[in-house]
């Protein structure tokens, strides 16, 4: 049972030893010891420089399309393809105003629709998934193991197998072209991935804490709300950031449930943009592409720590 496990325990040591710490020095020593000199004709410093050079080159290749997208969003459409440089020779901020107003509604309308779906999903995932996780991590009940296994399996269930009947169901209650089909499932903890993430985290919280609270007469409701949730803030943050990014990027279900242009979210609107203007207005389309990924980028910038921990804990996406 000693397989590799990474948990986001509150006191977990940081994965990378800070440079200069004993751990870093030990590992550096070990690395050197493991490299007999005959293996490489170059001194360590040259090799390290070469490695950095290679890594930087790769980083540039990886990030180039994104920078180019940004640069192109301020170039006039006619010169986008003639001009490979990242610094635009003439600045066309009109792409942004033009793109913003290219569809039936200003692009802000679609961003707002996305925001509504995101906020609903956030509330749902944070509340419902943490509740379910508390039960799986701390409560003793009949069939727990079975339900837990079902929960794990539901993570891997392709959404496509349920989307057709879901569509029929939601059509019958008149929810097509509302945000409910996108929000209600989250309120019912169907994003089992996050249940699992929080179960992992809760298991790392010392039981002595809730046992003490029980002795003091706390019920499960208070243990959950007053002890577990505050201690699980990192897991909640991870959940919030992933929910935000995945919901914001989600396309398949939004495409299916939101067919009326007024209800379109940013990705669906962007795709309509592509269809309606085709090749003619790359500039404005790139501008709106940038607008639509800025929120994800900001979430990445400010939540990176939680994202990395979240992936390392559960290993998804």
């Amino acid at each position, binding site marked *: 049972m000693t397989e590799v496990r990474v*948990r986001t325990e509150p006191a977990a040591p940081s994965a990378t030893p800070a440079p200069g710490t004993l751990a870093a020095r030990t590992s550096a020593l070990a*690395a050197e010891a493991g490299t007999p000199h005959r293996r490489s004709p170059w001194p360590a410093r040259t090799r390290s420089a070469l490695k950095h050079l290679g890594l930087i080159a790769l980083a540039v290749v990886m990030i180039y399309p994104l920078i180019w997208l940004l640069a192109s969003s301020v170039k006039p459409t006619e010169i986008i393809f003639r001009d490979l440089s990242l610094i635009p020779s003439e600045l066309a901020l009109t792409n942004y105003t033009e793109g913003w107003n290219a569809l039936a509604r200003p692009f802000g309308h679609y961003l707002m629709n996305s925001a509504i779906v995101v906020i609903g999903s956030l509330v749902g995932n944070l509340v419902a998934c943490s509740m379910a996780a508390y*039960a799986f991590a701390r409560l003793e009940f009949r069939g727990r193991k079975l339900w837990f296994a079902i929960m*794990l399996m539901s993570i891997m269930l392709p959404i496509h*197998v*349920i989307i057709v*009947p879901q569509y029929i169901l939601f059509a019958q209650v008149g929810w097509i072209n509302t945000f409910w089909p996108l929000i209600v499932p989250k309120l019912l903890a*169907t994003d089992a991935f996050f249940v699992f993430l929080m179960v992992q985290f809760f298991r790392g919280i010392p039981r002595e804490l809730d046992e003490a609270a029980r002795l003091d007469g706390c019920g499960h409701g208070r243990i959950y709300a007053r002890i577990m949730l505050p201690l699980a803030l990192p897991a909640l943050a991870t959940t919030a950031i992933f929910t935000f990014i995945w919901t914001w990027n989600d396309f398949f279900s939004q495409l299916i449930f939101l067919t009326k242009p007024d209800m379109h979210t940013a990705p669906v609107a962007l795709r309509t943009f592509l269809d309606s203007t085709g090749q003619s207005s790359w500039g404005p389309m790139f501008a709106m*592409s940038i607008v639509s990924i800025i929120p994800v*980028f900001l979430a990445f910038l400010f939540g990176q720590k939680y994202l990395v921990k979240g992936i390392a804990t559960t290993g998804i996406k």
Partner: protein
Amino acid sequence: MSVVSELRRTARSGPSRAPGRAPLRRGDGRAAAFFLAPWFAGLALVTVGPMVASAYLSFTDYSLLAPPEWVGLDNFARMLEDARLHNALRVTFTYVLVGVPLQLVAALGLALLLDRGMRGLPFYRSVFYLPSLLGGSVAIAILWRQVFGVEGLVNAFLAFFNVPGRGWVSDPDTALWTLVLLHVWTFGAPMIIFLAGLRQIPQMYYEAASIDGAGRVRQFLHITLPLLTPIVFFNLVLQVIGAFQSFTQAFVVSGGTGGPADSTMFYTLYLYQRGFTAFDMGYASAMAWLLVLIVAALTAINFVASKFWVFYDD
């Protein structure tokens, strides 16, 4: 560490519980019912209910307009003869069988290069990870369509070296490969899982090995790789499952058609067309169940094969 190892453990062991820990108290049935109420409701209404319904619909002819009409195995018989479906399977399998291994090799290679505590590690990690977050978005798919278009960035580069370009996304021979490349581009997420796994390997193994005179290559082959196999396996299972369900990239890059000449017709894209463009809901349901079977079979194959190459230290 993972869904997969949890499942493996649950399947293997008897009563599963955080090892060595007594339950807080016997019988929290009522509290559990309360805390699990939303999840149970979701399981019944949003997951299992629709699964049952979709199993039923797969034996019917249903277009939303008239009530479903029982047709027995007709949908499945049609699937046997549907050349576009077979093509979709071929396209998707190609995408998965080429894209996933390439992506994992890139992820593992980079994770190995990024040494513990090396200078600039956070920077490299961020830069390599960012594409994974954006890769599934419509914006990036639009970008891809342009980059590999006739007048796109790639061709402009080639022209710079006087190499004639081509319409990468409009040519049936190359369109799918641009999507494979997009998949490889998102190697950052599995890379971070590998990084976490590498950090778990006790340093003393390497120290002991180097005292015994093992060089870097042998250390890699005899320590790193065996201890990393569970994580490779885990990544493989999840990436295969995920890649088989890819939709957005193909949908946007091909303008919703799966073209040119059905060369980017992913399975899910064809399912979408049957179900939500042609409103052939019975057939789409049958297709969805085939998808479940395929994903389950691939996962099972992975699990069985893992006995021969995954090393569990327990």
